[in-house]
């Protein structure tokens, strides 16, 4: 029973929001390889949403494009989520390993990513008055992914409903702290770098004169 290949697991999980992740856990399905692919797909989906959509929906002028926010919104946010969730749930008797949190969370993002690509396609044939189709697809993807993510966390840690809600709220707080520390760290390292760089130029100057 339920001997599925990896692609079949993806389909099973996405189309069975309430049982899928329990099955995945029971059968030890899912692979990190897919996580990487999904996060890359998310990164390109976010870029596509801003850059490749029809011009009538384009929110951002060409001159203001920078790739950093997109890396931030895909890779960094995902890693912060996984790290934060793992940190919180280890303390809250969660059963999930870091690897499983990675896999389950990323599988949950699939509907959102797909809806984004569908929307990118739709913006090429819709005009602004018909935006309702566009937002419908967007909200379907968002709610679907939200539901999956909730059940993913619930299944991976074997939590009850209330405990999952609490864990997710705490995870969001943990994410904020992680990102705050990351920014602090970055700026600190920048200061250190500048210090050593000025030291280097100073020495160079002395050597020359």
């Amino acid at each position, binding site marked *: 029973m339920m001997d599925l290949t990896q692609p079949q697991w993806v389909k099973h999980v996405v189309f069975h929001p309430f049982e899928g992740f329990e099955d995945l856990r029971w059968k030890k399905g899912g692979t990190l390889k897919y996580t990487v692919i999904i996060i890359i797909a998310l990164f390109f989906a976010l870029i596509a949403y801003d850059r490749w959509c*029809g*011009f*009538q*929906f*384009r929110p951002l*002028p*060409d*001159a*203001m494009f920078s790739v950093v926010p997109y890396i931030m919104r895909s890779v960094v946010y995902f890693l912060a989520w996984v790290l934060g969730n793992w940190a919180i749930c280890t303390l809250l008797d969660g059963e999930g390993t870091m690897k499983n949190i990675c896999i389950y969370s990323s599988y949950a993002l699939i509907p959102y990513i797909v809806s984004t690509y569908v929307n990118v396609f739709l913006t090429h*044939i819709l*005009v*602004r*008055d018909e935006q309702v189709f566009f937002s419908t697809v967007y909200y379907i993807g968002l709610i679907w992914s939200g539901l999956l993510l909730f059940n993913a966390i619930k299944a991976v840690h074997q939590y009850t409903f209330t405990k999952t809600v609490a864990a997710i709220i705490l995870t969001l707080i943990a994410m904020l702290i992680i990102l705050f520390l990351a920014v602090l760290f970055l700026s600190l390292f920048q200061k250190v770098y500048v210090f050593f760089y000025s030291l280097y130029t100073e020495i160079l100057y002395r050597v*020359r004169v």
Partner: protein
Amino acid sequence: MKKQAKRRLIRTAAAGLSLLAAIPALALPTSADEPYDVYNYNYLGEAVPSQAGYLAERSVSGLDLGTDAFSTPSDLFKDENDLFYLVDSGNNRILVIDSEFTKIEKIYDSFKMPDGSETTLKNPKGVFVSPDTGYLYIADNENSRALVCTKEGEVVMEITKPESTVYDQQLTFLPQKILCDNAGNIYIVLNNTTKGAAMFDANGEFIGYYGANAVAATATVIANHFWNAIASEEEKRYRARSTPTAFDNFDLDTAKGFIYTSTSSGSTDTDIVKKVNPEGYNLFSYMSNFTWGDLFSTWYSGTSYKTKIVDIDIGSDGSINCLDATTGRVFQYDKEADLLFIMGATGDQVGAFTAGNVTAVETKGDGCENVYVLDSGKGTVTIFGQTVFGGIVHHATTLYNGGYYEEALDPWLEVLKRDGNYRRAYLGISSAYYNMGRYKDSMEYAKKADASARYNRAFERYRSEWLREHLTVILIIAAVLIAGIWGLRKFLRKKREKALATATNQKGGAAV
């Protein structure tokens, strides 16, 4: 060793200097005639190099016109016959100069009162000539009066401090600027009230105030409003009141009858320029986020230099010319408040002005062919002439704003040939092609202008046209697809049933 190093240093410095000198030449290929770099703002609000719409032709002093040098001149006005009236405040006189600005037609330094006595001006600040009544209106500042007189210099009416209860009797009456609208009402800008311009009827009776600025809704003002709402009458009397800044100059759009006001106060961003209808309502109030003049204040040595619009002029084609005293620049907008050109600077050359001392701007011609800027510091009037490029832009703008999109197409294309950065040309071309039914081209130009709303409009038409054209093909493809899927499903179901039947047969056979 040391000598070599020194020589290398010198060489590097020399190379650096020559590079530095080359940079402006490379970056800003503008006209060599200008003592400043010509720029315009793109839709992101960045200053980009641009073609000059106006070039400074010459500057005229009082001596050039064969009279005494101007002494702190404060106003310049052009009447309907293209005669210029220059208020030479320091010399207490008003000069009438011909339309070419080459000779003086007349000098008003004394006037005949109705009772036959002579009267002179004392530091006059403003002048206006009404095309309807033909009278001169003079803001005679230090005499605390405004004079209405004929062109022969006979005073018809003298307006002094009103004795109305509406007018606070403790206030002085020092007219700064004056104008007379198409109905004969007289408006006087005073420097000591924030209630707006004092308004008088044609007989000189005080009516009230007109067109006050609104109070900027800053956090302090909102907080004040809240505290006032819960404060008692006693407390309220001691609370600070929110008063708006006063506008200090205005101009009449003779063709349409609107009065445009300008505010030079550096402490506010609201109502810098207003377009006021006869009822006193500001028609530009919807543009509350619009920045007139330079988009960013500059900071230098801890001081902020902010645009100070000291005078405003409405050209014959409806263009709004704002004079910024801080930078000595004239910002020319079309009647929809789209920026056309920026000209002027601070400095000593022709086309540049002494900082903070420019006092008046005036335009001449149906297409604003000339712009005149009065510099009270230098005591000169500088005349800007329109370039070919400026003329084409004005022509295209007038057509475009009048709704003649298709007629404006050729001028806009010509504008693009001369300045590919000129965004309004792309918008104009996009609109023209839209009206001509060339939706694909309209989309292309809307895209180049980064105007996605316009693109949306053209795309909608393009899509429906495309659908109409390809409807047969689309229907055929859809029909084939539906039939194909239906056939495939039926085929698959039959196959499955067959397989199931064989399986049960086999099972059945085994059981038996």
